[in-house]
């Protein structure tokens, strides 16, 4: 909204107030409508409004207000501070707005339970919290004594993103017991996080506020309309478009992002993004649209004249693109055969990128979430440099979106130091169960070898145990075998696919049932505070609470809690933040206000390196952007060559398997799927649209991205369709795989709300419109009903 629009909106609001006030005056005594006062009017008449938080894991966090009457939450509203162009309100999306239905959901876990059937069978028996904590303490002690602390693994978890999360509390406990097997990498951005530092030294992105300065915005596998990603990401995008930016969306699906924002949609075949980029580079070179001055000044490895010493000729990016190194010229025609995008469309995009300045290339997480996902990341940075867009307002390269260096410096529950120095790449935790002691540096093990295979797993607020991981059938076989992992503790809100594999299953509280702090990671500078407004139902408890009791049973109670309650930890965390940031409010102020926010900043990544390269060299070996990385070249790994290449992904469109299996699973992280594990269950099992379903589901890890087939973070060789097996068996049960969208390679659009049910043929068989009808509940959704 520009300023005029905003003013108009204010006028509208005042006018509306006047209108409704005037109209209501005559009948005020009996309620405006003659049937009592409408809900919500009661503010000031026995209703308290208290700041709470949506603390699920998208890139943002949202400020919510709970309206409470007689101890019951009657309504959820959101930020109502002035909504200005420079400081737009932090308006919660439907996930936050649906919080009431999540809290009171009948499917919530209520009591601690122990497994009574086979592991994974889903048969449990109610036990007391005393029995549960006793069993966890005894098994933890036994496993640590027999196999050592490195046999304990704390699963990747994003279901509880508060400052005092279960996984942080578990780390704290384990560090008092000798440590635990640590992990690195992430399911979200492994290829990006690993690769970008080789090129630019560190990973950073322009802030959303700079989008409005762009003349061209290229969204590559970035789909904020369905994933939200950050509280105001879509709003900034809309404003940029209204300010005149041309928007091109590269995505296999006509996503809501493409449908809403795209002037042009390029439906490429999944995993072929790097081929498209390399061909765009070819056009920029062939048509002399490269910013040679920028490349010469700030980059190494673009052409043969700017290569590091000791590298034979023919290894520059230009040589690769022009086919001098391998005899294959990477023309748009070459890429058309790979990507499915016509050569003229590739040419047009390259010309637009080469001439419209500044232009921003925003890459989502999907294009790096498959085999050789590193290459589209590196090729994207190369393109941004070829067009002189790095370090420029309205330009820039946004890798994986988020990761901006803007966060307010606030910590969480102190976890202490881990005495175990061995780390595994997160994706290989199942390997660490079956062959941990045999894994080596070639598997990515750091400070190995592992003294033991994984024998004990904490899975707290996470669906990674089953649904998040690839090759679910294999994972399930491993987890079922009690001779491998001896004990699994799960806490969650719902019986997710992961929770079914618990030996002890614990009912977790919700963010409105405890006080906590939330911090966005995508770059807006604020923190939210959520007050405890209701008691947890039944015997639901915060992970910190039961972990304190486990610690007590192990004689570590005092060391674990330091005599502090959760609230006292929060006060300490806020106190520490105040030391680092004098503007940070007091605990009481934060609690009352519900958020602390600095003005959004027009932040430009790598601005200082571009402005003053002598004083601020890129933190790479050469001090420049390394389009050719000598470090990677010297590793001599064909999967990650010195300059970005297009390398066909296994199980991708060029794999010979495609001849036998012409359809490709392309898992879409639709917003409703987000809701599914972030806050709500997306579907009620009868194919109703997401927005009409009030049932929440597992609080397991978050999704905010596209998934590509063959997903899996290198160095795995297993392609993924996480959760597919489980979902097919139990639709709508838990986890985030409810949305396994199957569609033809050509990327026919499946509307939000479309999903594949176990009893329904894949959506691609039906026409798009039929899909829409099916997705929204068939005949019920006609306009006339």
């Amino acid at each position: 909204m520009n300023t005029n629009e905003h003013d108009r909106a204010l006028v509208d609001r005042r006018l509306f107030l006047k209108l409704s006030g005037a109209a209501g005056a005559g009948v005020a005594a009996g309620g405006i409508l003659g049937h009592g006062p409408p809900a919500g009017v009661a503010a000031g008449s026995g209703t308290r409004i208290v700041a709470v938080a949506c603390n699920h894991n998208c890139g943002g966090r949202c400020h919510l207000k709970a309206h409470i009457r007689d101890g019951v939450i009657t309504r959820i509203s959101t930020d109502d501070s002035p909504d200005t162009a420079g400081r737009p309100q932090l308006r919660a999306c439907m996930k936050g707005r649906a919080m009431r239905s999540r809290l009171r959901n009948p499917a919530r876990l209520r009591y601690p339970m122990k497994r009574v059937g086979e592991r994974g069978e889903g048969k449990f028996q109610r036990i007391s919290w005393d029995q549960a904590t006793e069993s966890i303490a005894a098994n933890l002690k036994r496993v640590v004594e027999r196999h050592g602390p490195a046999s304990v693994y704390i699963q990747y978890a994003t279901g509880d993103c508060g400052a005092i999360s279960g996984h942080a509390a578990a780390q704290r406990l384990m560090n008092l017991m000798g440590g635990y097997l640590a992990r690195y990498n992430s399911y979200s951005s492994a290829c990006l996080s690993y690769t970008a530092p080789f090129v630019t030294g560190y990973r950073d992105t322009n802030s959303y506020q700079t989008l409005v300065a762009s003349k061209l915005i290229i969204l590559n596998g970035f789909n904020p309309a369905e994933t939200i990603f950050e509280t105001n990401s879509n709003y900034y995008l809309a404003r940029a478009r209204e300010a005149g930016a041309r928007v091109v969306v590269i995505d296999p699906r006509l996503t809501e992002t493409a449908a809403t924002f795209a002037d042009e949609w390029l439906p490429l075949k999944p995993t072929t993004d790097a081929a498209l980029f390399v061909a765009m580079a070819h056009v920029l070179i062939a048509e002399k649209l490269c910013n040679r001055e920028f490349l010469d000044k700030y980059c190494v490895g673009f052409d043969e004249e700017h290569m590091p010493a000791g590298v034979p000729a023919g290894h520059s990016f230009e040589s690769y693109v022009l086919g001098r190194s391998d005899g294959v010229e990477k023309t748009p025609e070459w890429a058309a055969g790979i990507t499915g995008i016509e050569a003229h469309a590739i040419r047009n995009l390259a010309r637009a990128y080469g001439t419209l300045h500044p232009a921003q290339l925003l890459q989502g997480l999907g294009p790096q979430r498959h085999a050789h996902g590193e290459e589209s990341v590196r090729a994207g940075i190369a393109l941004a440099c070829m067009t002189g867009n790095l370090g420029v307002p309205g330009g820039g390269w946004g890798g994986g979106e988020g990761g901006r260096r803007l966060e307010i410096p606030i910590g969480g529950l102190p976890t202490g130091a881990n005495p175990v120095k061995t780390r595994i790449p997160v994706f290989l935790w199942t390997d660490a169960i079956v062959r941990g002691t045999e894994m080596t540096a070639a598997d990515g093990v750091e400070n190995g070898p592992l003294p033991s295979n994984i024998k004990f797993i904490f899975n707290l607020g996470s669906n990674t145990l089953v649904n998040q991981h690839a090759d679910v059938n294999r994972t399930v076989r491993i987890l079922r075998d009690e001779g491998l992992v001896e004990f699994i503790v799960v806490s969650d809100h719902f019986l997710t696919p992961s929770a079914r594999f618990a030996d002890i299953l614990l009912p977790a509280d919700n963010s409105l049932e405890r006080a906590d702090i939330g911090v966005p990671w995508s770059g807006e500078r604020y923190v939210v505070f959520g007050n405890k407004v209701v008691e947890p139902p039944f015997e639901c408890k915060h992970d910190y609470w039961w972990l304190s009791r486990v610690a007590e049973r192990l004689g570590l109670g005092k060391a674990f809690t330091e005599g502090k309650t959760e609230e006292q930890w929060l006060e300490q965390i806020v106190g520490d933040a105040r030391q680092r940031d004098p503007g940070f409010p007091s605990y009481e102020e934060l609690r009352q206000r519900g958020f602390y926010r600095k003005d959004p900043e027009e932040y430009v990544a790598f601005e200082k390196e571009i402005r003053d390269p002598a004083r601020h060299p890129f933190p790479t070996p050469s001090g420049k952007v390394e389009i050719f990385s000598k470090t990677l070249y010297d590793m001599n790994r064909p999967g990650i060559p010195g300059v970005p290449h297009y390398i066909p992904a296994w199980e991708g469109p060029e794999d010979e398997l495609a001849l036998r299996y012409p359809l490709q699973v392309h898992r879409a992280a639709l917003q409703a799927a987000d809701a599914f594990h972030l806050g709500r269950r997306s579907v009620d099992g009868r194919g109703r649209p997401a927005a009409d379903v009030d049932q929440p589901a597992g609080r397991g890890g978050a999704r905010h991205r596209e998934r590509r087939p063959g997903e899996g973070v290198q160095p795995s060789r297993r392609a993924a369709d996480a959760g597919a097996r489980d979902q097919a068996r139990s639709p709508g049960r838990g986890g985030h795989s409810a949305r396994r969208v199957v569609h033809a390679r050509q990327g026919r659009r499946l509307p939000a709300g479309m999903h594949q049910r176990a009893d329904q043929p894949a959506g691609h068989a039906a026409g798009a419109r039929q899909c829409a009808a099916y997705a929204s509940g068939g005949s019920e959704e006609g306009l006339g009903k």
Partner: protein
Amino acid sequence: MTPARAQIGFFVDATRCINCKTCEIACKDFNDAPVGRRIRKVRSFEGGEFPTVFAYNLSMSCNHCEQPACVEGCPAGAYSKRAADGIVVHDPEKCIGCRYCTWLCPYGAPQYDAREGRVRKCNLCVGEATPVCVAACPMRAIEVGPLAEIAARPGSTIALRDLPSPELTRPSIRYRVRKEAQA
């Protein structure tokens, strides 16, 4: 029907709508509406042939029509149209649950609830400073204002490819939509 002195209506910028359904859920939360009772809905439409396809979303509740079929057709007198601002209000106390209105309304605004045995619909959050959907939309795509003003905005339209003819009930809503969606 006598025209309202100053009819108010919705302005929905469909070029901004990302189909996130926050308006729908916020409305549902405010109205304590159970599953199946969608007082506000976001509907998706699409067209074209691959690869030249398009899609757009329309958020809609009650359109507080200038010639409301529900007011005319309700046998129980549960509906009335306010003279001052033209808001069409439904009084659930008078509703007998016959569902005639759900057949009459071309937009699916009245929502029958089998458990309550009666209908509920958007009363434009009368009494609230700002309608909940307007305050909720993360895209700032829903506004409320005098119909005469919103109808005069650039790009404002009501005749859409996928909607019933506005001549049926003269709905008090205007859209900004992509050109493919215009009738």
